[in-house]
């Protein structure tokens, strides 16, 4: 498929997604209360981001494809629209064609042991379903699977001439590593300037990072609210959205800060009213869970509401809600790049766990279990997270020391057929019963 054909086909898909989310936003307008406004604000940010990419494709403006851990504050400071290469798997079950796309990837002959979040974009590239950008930012971390995607796009007819840059992630996590990665980000910024015609204005970058700091400050404030018993929100509101708003659309935009302000307000209101995650009459929080991974976006509606209603089990914390971040020191160019490097090399979710050394697993579990009064740690064991599979023993022993039950399931977060939701529910129920929870 040549570039023109891809342009038309990908635009059609992108517009379809945009229209779907526009419909959802209209529906949220009908939701009462502050939480309705929260969802509306989120969808507005998401939709604007989609609209911008559509505009770029239609009018041949510069835009890029990259990842959340490519320091998106830099894109904003350069006024450079972008979309995430692995976007669709994270759009939850709200993307109605997820399963047929996974089947499409299988029919291409891609190994089914490759992470579904990587298989899907490979399928999209090969089938002309993703807009071809002006430049691509690759990802050599957190896992070895991610570069597969770049190998595919480098050989695809429509994508092969798109310049690509991948920051080189050092293995270690010390000061030298952060400095090294800061230089990689500088080179990335040079690359983007060269290939998109955009310029990096340092004053604008300071402004963006300061706004980003405001968002992160509010995020941390909000996370403290989740320590409350009962937790003010469950799986539906909070962490995963906070991650998306802070890192996946227009990082460091005042609308993002406004969303976080609204999030805090919603959480505080719930605590003041003594309400927990579910609005069901007579409902009570019984089990506080730490879901140590991405949410099972491919079949989330088949597990999470059930956990809350059947067991009173609330996802109080998850991998993407965790807050290991530090604010960016905006006093100089050097400190800004240092802060961005730390955030994107050491702190960003999944990167923190899969690139980082295994101590992050044990330290984070120790901290989160104590702070958030966790009753059970669930390591879902996503088939793509083979790095994590290697640390299951460490996680289990850490939990034993903390005297908190640890459940390892083994599933695919995006493909419900791998371990179907019914099996997962059965396994969870048996475990809760066996452990005397709930």
């Amino acid at each position, binding site marked *: 498929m040549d570039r023109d054909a891809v342009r038309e086909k990908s635009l059609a898909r992108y517009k379809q997604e945009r229209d779907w989310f526009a419909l959802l936003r209209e529906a949220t307008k009908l939701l009462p209360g502050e939480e309705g406004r929260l969802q509306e604000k989120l969808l507005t940010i998401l939709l604007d981001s989609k609209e911008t990419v559509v505009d770029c494709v239609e009018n041949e403006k510069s835009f890029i494809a990259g990842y959340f851990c490519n320091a998106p504050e830099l894109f904003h400071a350069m006024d450079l629209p972008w979309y995430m290469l692995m976007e669709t798997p994270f759009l939850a079950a709200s993307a109605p064609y997820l399963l047929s796309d996974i089947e499409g990837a299988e029919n291409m002959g891609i190994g089914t042991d490759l992470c579904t979040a990587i298989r899907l974009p490979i399928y999209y590239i090969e089938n002309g379903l993703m807009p071809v950008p002006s430049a691509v930012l690759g990802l050599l971390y957190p896992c070895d699977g991610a570069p597969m995607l770049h190998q595919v796009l480098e050989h695809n007819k429509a994508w092969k001439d798109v*310049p690509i840059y*991948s920051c080189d992630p050092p293995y270690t996590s010390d000061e030298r590593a952060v400095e090294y990665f800061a230089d990689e980000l500088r080179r990335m910024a040079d690359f983007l300037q060269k290939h998109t015609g955009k310029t990096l204005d340092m004053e604008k970058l300071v402004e963006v990072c300061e706004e980003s700091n405001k968002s992160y400050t509010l995020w941390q404030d909000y996370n403290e609210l989740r320590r409350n*018993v009962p937790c003010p929100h469950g799986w539906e509101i909070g962490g995963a959205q906070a991650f998306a708003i802070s890192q996946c659309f227009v990082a460091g935009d005042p609308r993002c800060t406004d969303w976080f302000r609204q999030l805090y307000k919603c959480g505080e209101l719930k605590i003041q009213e003594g309400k927990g995650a579910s609005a069901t009459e007579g409902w009570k929080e019984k089990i506080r869970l730490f879901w140590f991974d991405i949410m099972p976006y491919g079949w989330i509606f088949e597990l999470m509401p059930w956990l809350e209603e059947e067991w009173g089990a609330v996802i109080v914390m998850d991998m993407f809600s965790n807050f290991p971040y530090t604010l960016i020191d905006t006093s100089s160019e050097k400190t800004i790049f240092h802060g961005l490097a730390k955030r994107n090399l050491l702190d960003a979710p999944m990167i923190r766990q899969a690139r980082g050394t295994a101590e992050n697993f044990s330290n984070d579990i120790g901290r989160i279990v104590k702070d958030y009064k966790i009753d059970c740690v669930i390591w879902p064991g996503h088939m793509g997270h083979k790095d994590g599979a290697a640390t299951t023993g460490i996680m289990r022993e850490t939990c034993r020391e903390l005297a908190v039950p640890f459940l390892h399931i083994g599933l695919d977060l995006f493909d419900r057929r791998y371990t179907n939701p019914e099996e997962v529910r059965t396994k969870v129920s048996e475990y809760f019963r066996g452990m005397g929870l709930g």
Partner: protein
Amino acid sequence: MARFDEYIEKVSRYIEEMRSGGARAVEFDHPGSPEQLREGLPIGVGPNANPGIVLRSDTFVELGNPQAGSCAALLWTDRPSLIRDGRITLFGPDIQESADASLPFGQILTVGGNDLGQEDHEKLQQAQHVADQIEGYMVRSASQNLWSRISKDAAAKGFDFETLGRALMDLVKTGAPAVSAVEVLFVTTSKADVKRLDGIVSGVREINREILKETWKARGYDLDCDFDCTSCKDQEICDDIRDVIVARKKKTGSEKDGERP
């Protein structure tokens, strides 16, 4: 086990320098058992002593906001003679005089016990995470800084650094019975003083990491791969291969701008 002894001495020197520099200092003495430490405290200490959270609007004083300055470390030794059990040293303003303030905050816990060993390390580190164990005191859930809030209710009951120091000593001694002596240092004078203290104990993080690695290794788990380019005996060959790839790409003209060899 003298891995932290060097830092214990450095912290002692820091205390002396602060004193000789004229920093406002207060000292309290509370040697004794956990029960003795708890006796007469104005707030509760122990599991679930702080069942709720301290909201921003309920906060009397904030400690260790990264913008104000924050530093924390726990140092331990099997030579308790290096430590004066029960001593709490405060440099700078106390809680009761700091309503609505955001104070810089340095906290060093120095712990000693004849039988303390590497196997106690993780337990001691965990003891620092007070979670819900001190009434009216909430340490924010951040992995790097020690950033905390003291509630208005706790302040009204008389919560001050003497209280906090005693509560921390109680938790450490309760959590690790091999501990026979605990000393606490609090610094709230200025961001610069906290930063200097942070510089002094910065090497502690690396030691913590090393101990963690060794402990897990003894249990059969490798936290880290002790192997990188700088330690690889084949680095030269690898570098040659990279050079060949670059040369080949240049020759065939296949090197795209921005692409790495």
